[in-house]
């Protein structure tokens, strides 16, 4: 579903990219955390993350963090 210039009828979960973005955001950046260390096995290598942070890649792919200080 999107706004902007009048166009095709709106639909939820518009586009594969938007769906994957929401899936990654919800599952890797939200939800209950039970384990301080989340260990992913990836190609035979255990990756240990003390903290997961997700950079949402939308049209710009990478959003650098803003320094508020």
């Amino acid at each position, binding site marked *: *579903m*999107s*706004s*902007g210039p*009048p166009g095709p009828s*709106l639909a*939820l*979960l*518009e586009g594969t990219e*938007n*769906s*994957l*973005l*929401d*899936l*990654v*955001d*919800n*599952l*890797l*950046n*939200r*939800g*209950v*955390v*039970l*384990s*301080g260390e*989340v*260990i*992913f*096995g*990836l*190609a035979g290598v255990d990756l240990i993350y003390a903290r*997961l942070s997700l950079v*949402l890649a*939308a*049209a*710009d792919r*990478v*959003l*650098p*963090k*803003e320094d*508020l200080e």
Partner: protein
Amino acid sequence: MSGLYVYGIAGAGIAAPLGGGLAGEPLRWVAGGAVRAVAGELAEPPAPAPAALAAHDAAVRRLAAQVPALLPARFGQFLPDEHTLRHWLTAHARELTAALERVAGCVQMTLRVFAAAAATAAAPVEAEEIAAAAEAGPGTRYMERRRREVERLHSLPEIAALREALRPLLRDERIERAAGPGRLRGTAYDLIAGGEVAEYSRIVAATAPRLTGCRVTASGPWPPYAFAPRVPA
């Protein structure tokens, strides 16, 4: 190293058929205090590939449909054994119970706000804010600046009209303004009653096209991932 992979937290209640998890493993309830978790035995933690994420979400959605309230677990919650899980549930039963009451019967809708192609400026600072800040002392100015920064991090004035139109449906909301100069302005996670999805969609479809300088996409319904409590791991 095998362990328990957790999909979500629910309250105490009648047993429901749980089916299989993302790897087809049988799922079971693990109780701790007044709450219980849904978990399955896996030989190793799953890799965060798109297919695994989708399978985790599918399992969570199926479980959410079978209980009055479910707090989805983040992907990758892998604990060594049932004892560890029971201990964690019992230790956080109070916060989890309160969160379950908040999300009962609800789903999450997600709005993402993008600047229109030619508009990349950050949210405007009100002129009266600038004038008030100029009159205050340095300490007050610093505190006011920090307060405004925190407010801006959790506000999307670009879609104020849409937020007002949705207000009657919102049980809770989380707003995160995007950092950086990119086109993503921010995201609003809305908790609404499950029966209000159609009305929510109607309001977004009717109101969002009238917004200027930005474009809004909506997705959902999702299980309430963004409304899971932050409890110590």
